[in-house]
């Protein structure tokens, strides 16, 4: 529905709200002041530590304010420091710094340029590239993570050369032996485009793979299994299976940075749903309020009941449209009531097992549900609650229309609280034990001294010992007096 027209460009809102907390790691630290003029691409937040990334002005203008505000992050709606930027429409560019020669310097530059995984996880790209210990395979992820989203498809169709160049740069940086470029079956145009681009660049190292369009094939863990037959061990990331996954949008951003020195200041966002007048893929400056983006797409149409950030499987509902688009914002769905799930009662679980048939990590949602209802955490553990990727597939397949995913999310939270409490109780017990041991040692000490005293009584220097003991006691009393 949003792939019919080319990527729309030229959106420049009057005001940008640029959050410092846009990446999976720590938030960036503002390096600008209120009233300061900035040019597009100028750093306004420096990386706030390992796995963080730089944040840049997405347009030229003046810093209006720096304050805490609500930000839709990957972990839900949180508050973060935001730099408010009053744009001036002049689109002045900051001078570029050039692409360093050394690998380490390059990786640092990528971190400073604010490049993070644009598939939605916003994991630090620099960190992924740096951390290549045993990775032999680079996977270029051109499979959309959700059915509604088409921004990666459009990017591959319109900028195949940049994407492939970015991919080649990633190969060189990681030293991966081979690269697989995965594109979904139903995107023949995108596949043709990137193939031709690779041929044009004279590259023969990249292998192209068509993957089935089955949600969530774009999920890293599923993609790794699909392409290599390897599994990412429970609780870890693809590198544990020897793979690095990079999104095509990230490759595009990397190429832009390498060739033009432009840091990450915009991303492609799919705007869709029956509630938006002209669904489209839009190149959006980071920090654009969602309302401005919708306005750019012709505004709302009809009665919009839910505004969803991300796709309609894993995206979450937003309370309002005054929130900014961040680097993680791949899709906005303005949905009418008839295209979304209304929780109108559930039937009891009829044990049909349809949920298990669609569960990507092969869990048994129906058994998980039972264990979650009674909060049996041992059972939940052995049934793999924490391996649930919250993809929502089980919900959609369930004939009893049970909100399984939400129950699992809640159970995970409850479990986290319970295990935290258990850890705290454990700590307290250990502390208590240590204290008891200390007391026992002290008592023993005193006993030994008394024994010595008793043994000394009657001996020649008993008098001296008693005097010494009295002196010790009075000194101690004096100490405790001053202590009080």
């Amino acid at each position, binding site marked *: 529905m949003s792939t019919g027209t080319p990527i729309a460009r030229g959106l420049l809102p009057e005001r940008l709200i640029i959050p410092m907390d846009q990446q999976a790691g720590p938030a960036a630290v503002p390096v600008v002041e209120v009233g300061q003029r900035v040019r597009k691409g100028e750093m306004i937040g420096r990386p706030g530590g390992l796995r963080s990334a730089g944040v840049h002005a997405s347009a030229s203008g003046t810093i209006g304010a720096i304050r805490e505000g609500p930000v839709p992050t990957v972990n839900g709606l949180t508050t973060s420091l935001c730099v408010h930027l009053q744009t001036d429409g002049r689109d002045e560019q900051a001078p570029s710094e050039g692409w360093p020669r050394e690998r380490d310097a390059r990786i640092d530059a990528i971190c400073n340029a604010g490049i993070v995984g644009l598939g939605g996880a916003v994991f630090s790209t620099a960190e992924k590239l740096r951390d290549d210990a045993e990775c032999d395979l680079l996977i270029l992820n051109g499979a959309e993570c959700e059915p509604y989203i088409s921004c990666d498809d459009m990017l591959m169709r319109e900028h195949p050369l940049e994407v492939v160049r970015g991919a080649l740069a990633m190969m060189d940086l990681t030293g991966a032996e081979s690269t697989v470029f995965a594109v979904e079956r139903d995107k023949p145009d995108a596949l043709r485009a990137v193939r031709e681009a690779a041929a044009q660049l004279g590259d023969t190292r990249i292998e192209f793979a068509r993957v089935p369009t089955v949600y969530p094939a774009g999920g890293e863990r599923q993609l790794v299994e699909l392409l290599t037959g390897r599994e990412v061990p429970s609780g870890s990331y693809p590198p544990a299976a020897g793979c690095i996954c990079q999104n095509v949008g990230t490759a595009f951003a990397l190429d832009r940075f390498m060739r033009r020195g432009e840091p990450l200041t915009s991303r492609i966002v799919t705007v869709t749903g029956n509630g938006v007048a002209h669904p489209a893929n839009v190149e959006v400056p980071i920090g654009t309020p969602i309302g401005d983006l919708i306005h750019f797409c012709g505004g709302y149409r009809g009665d919009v009941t839910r*505004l969803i950030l991300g796709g309609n499987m894993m995206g979450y*509902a937003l309370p309002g449209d005054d929130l900014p688009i961040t680097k993680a914002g791949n899709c906005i769905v303005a949905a009418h009531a008839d295209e979304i799930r209304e929780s109108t009662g559930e039937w009891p679980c009829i044990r049909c097992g349809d949920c298990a048939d669609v569960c990507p990590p092969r869990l048994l949602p129906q058994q998980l549900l039972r264990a979650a209802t009674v909060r049996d955490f041992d059972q939940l553990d052995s049934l793999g609650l924490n391996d649930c990727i919250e993809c929502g597939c089980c919900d959609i397949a369930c004939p009893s229309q049970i909100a399984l995913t939400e129950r699992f999310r809640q159970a995970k939270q409850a479990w986290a609280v319970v295990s935290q409490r258990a850890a705290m109780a454990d700590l307290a017990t250990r502390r208590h034990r240590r204290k008891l041991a200390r007391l026992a040692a002290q008592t023993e000490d005193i006993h030994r001294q008394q024994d010595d005293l008793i043994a000394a009584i009657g001996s020649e220097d008993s008098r001296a010992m008693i005097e010494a003991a009295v002196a010790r006691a009075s000194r101690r009393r004096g100490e405790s007096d001053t202590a009080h």
Partner: protein
Amino acid sequence: MRFELKPPPHALPTTSVPKVMRHVIYALAPAAFAHVWFFGWGICINALIATAAALGAEALMLRVRSRPVKPALLDGTATVTAVLLAFAIPPLAPWWVPVIGAVSAIVLAKHLYGGLGSNLFNPAMVGYAVLLISFPVEMTYWLPPRGAELGHSPVGAWDSLRFAVTGSLPQALAVDAVTQATPLDLVREGLTSMQTLAEVQAGPLFGGMGGRGWDWVNSLIAVGGLYLLFRGIIRWHIPVSMLAAIVVLAAVFHTIDASRFASASFHLFSGASLLGAFFIATDPVSAATTNRGRLIYGAGIGILVYAIRTWGGYPDGVAFAVLLMNATVPLLDRYTRPRIYGRPR
């Protein structure tokens, strides 16, 4: 603008319990037509009475358990139970037979275990078992199929209805004069009285692959079952493993002694093998839920069906086989969990 906050997923569900139940009824329709063609309107009368009784019992039990009544009545599950039961009841039955069967199914098997989703045993089969044990005579009032020349005209719709209401036939027709044993009964009786299979199967009730008429009904049941498979309402594991077990056992014994053991096709197309495989063993609530569990569960039913038919005390064993295997489901579910992605092999 303010928008509602609901947790993901937001996508529409693809199915619902009433929709699943509706498709089960659609899938049974062709076989029901064949049943009417060969054995008269009895099955429809029984289905109507059983459905009414099942819905009544369901409403009553929900009221007693203070649960909302309307959504449960509309979910179609009680209706499906009643219709499946009707397939197991002889076409000529006094009204209280389907009533007792349906009420037992809903009250005993379903609600005493906690209602929809909580029952350990298949309700329709519990209803059938209650009838078979309590009213062994009434449960043999099967009619000869159309086309088997037995010297009198088939029992008509009116006569069936009259029998359902009053328990007697017009013109002083004796029940025994019009009813007929089923092919499985005949095989069983014939073999115990030292006839060979070939002699038994030369009778007018036999023909084609199973019993006359039954082969059609069962073929259409299989068609309905394939429809359910195709619609993704059932999975292949249970029907395939159950039928495979029956076919393999029947083929082996038939090869050993064809005069005492019926052929695989006879076992498939007479009795309730196909109904059981596609519609009864696949009842989600009382079946195993993992794929490996389903294979074991289906195979277990198949083996038991063959054993009960061949060496047990009842001509057909589907109901008891299903009920026995129902009891193993909690264990199967527990010990056949698939390996989770990313966990050690």
